[in-house]
């Protein structure tokens, strides 16, 4: 599966999708749509140990390894945050931990997330990416040992 679509390819796909929107409002509407479709995380994970610190809205995130590939699930109490994390999951989920660790997540700049997707998100965004990469780090370790 990762053979057929790499992280880079998924990033390119999203960048392409976003290039079709010619104003921030359409981008927002798209992200909000994504947010609404985000597969909800199980109630049991909606607690502090799964919370991503540094976001103004609450974000819960979990990851599970299946056949050497890492799958993420998340939820948030804010829709835009949900949309953003849904993009991140779209790109990273279902990949090898090593590949996730190496992802530069450059598409975030390309699609204009940082300029238009409301400020402090920069912080929250980094926090989410860090948490996702931390899961990858943890499981890549497990793979090796």
């Amino acid at each position: 599966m990762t053979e057929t679509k790499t992280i880079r390819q998924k990033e390119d796909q999203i960048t392409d999708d976003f290039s079709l929107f010619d104003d921030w409002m359409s981008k927002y509407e798209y992200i909000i749509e994504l947010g609404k479709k985000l597969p909800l995380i199980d109630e049991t994970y909606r607690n502090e140990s799964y919370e991503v610190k540094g976001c103004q809205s609450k974000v819960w995130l979990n990851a599970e390894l299946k056949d050497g590939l890492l799958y993420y699930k998340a939820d948030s109490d804010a829709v835009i945050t949900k949309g953003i994390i849904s993009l991140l999951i779209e790109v990273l989920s279902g990949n090898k931990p090593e590949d996730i660790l190496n992802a530069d997540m450059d598409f975030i700049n390309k699609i204009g997330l940082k300029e238009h997707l409301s400020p402090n998100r920069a912080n929250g965004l980094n926090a989410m990416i860090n948490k996702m990469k931390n899961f990858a780090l943890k499981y890549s370790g497990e793979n090796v040992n």
Partner: protein
Amino acid sequence: MDAHTSNIESIDITKIREEFPILLRKISGQPIAYFDNAATSQKPLSVINAISEYYETINSNVHRGIHTLSEEATEAYENSREKVRRFINAQSSGEIVFTKGTTDGINLVASSFGTNVVGEGDEVIISEMEHHSNLVPWQNLCESRRAKLKYIPVNDKGELMMDEFRTMINEKTKLISVVYVSNSLGTVNPISEIIEIAHSFNIPVLVDAAQAAPHMKIDVSTLDCDFLAFSGHKMYGPTGIGILYGKEKHLESMPPYQFGGEMIKSVTYDNTVFNVLPYKFEAGTPNIAGAIVLGTAVDFMERLGHENIHNREMELLAHANKLFSEIGDIRIIGTAENKTSLISFIINGIHPYDTGSILDNFGIAVRTGFHCTQPLIEQRFKLPGTVRASFAFYNTFEEIDRLAAGIRKVKSMLL
């Protein structure tokens, strides 16, 4: 009243806005509508230029210097203190301590006065609507002194429950510290009444005036408060400077808070004699430019006039309230009779973060979250945060129209 004209003739809004260069900025292609005034106000050119002027003409370390620059800087520094004294009608300039800001002032009192008067088993009273800066210092003091911290409850309109307050006082109450104007609800508290009640039991009162200073005339002599703290940056002045007012008898009785240059009279290897008021509480090189230019901010406010500022802001608030009431699905948190020009709200079903993010793209700056009153928002009002639009006199009816339109748009996008 025609929503788009102000009946205040004394402030020429178009002209006064020209004194605020940042208001010309565009955000996301739109002129900025700055509604985050409760976090920090914008600064008029007189203030900005006074900073440059200080550095370009008299910059020097104050006190003890005998050369001309030092004398001039000292004079400007002490003139500003005198302006502030008049601004809040204190008895003597020894009662005016320059601090870093409200937080610094409250910590000074909690540390130097609090540890003097609060002992094991004693009680301190604050309210449920305190800013973290007037809450965490008392939590810490009470924890370290094994004293009890009690909170005056807040009713659903966001007002202090005064009857409850009366019953909370007892012989163990050693200190009361209350916010004058709530930064997240806008409530103007009956601070005179609180002080009167407290004093009838001989209990000293600290007033957190961070949100009062920009909006109303403060008169410490009439209030008879024991301490009062505020910040320059919220009242059109620079960042990094604030004022702690304290009654002379208290300040005299308190140990210094910080130690170093300026606050000493004489030092030997064995012993130090501290300086007189207010210098005893101003250790180290002060924020000289900040202190001097706080005086310029005072000048600016007095030029506008408290009355004019108040009237203008009340008109803006009325306009916003009217528009908000027409939108629907909006819940306003803080509906006290006596309010400053601030609306904390949530759109039902929409997270404040989503609202704020989208408004930002319309060039509208609001604050979202707990506004440093997390227990009030989360425990008392059971909300994940609010959206706060706080108005200053330089805001316009048009900007508020845009805010209302923006909120409608948020609803259409998210609901």
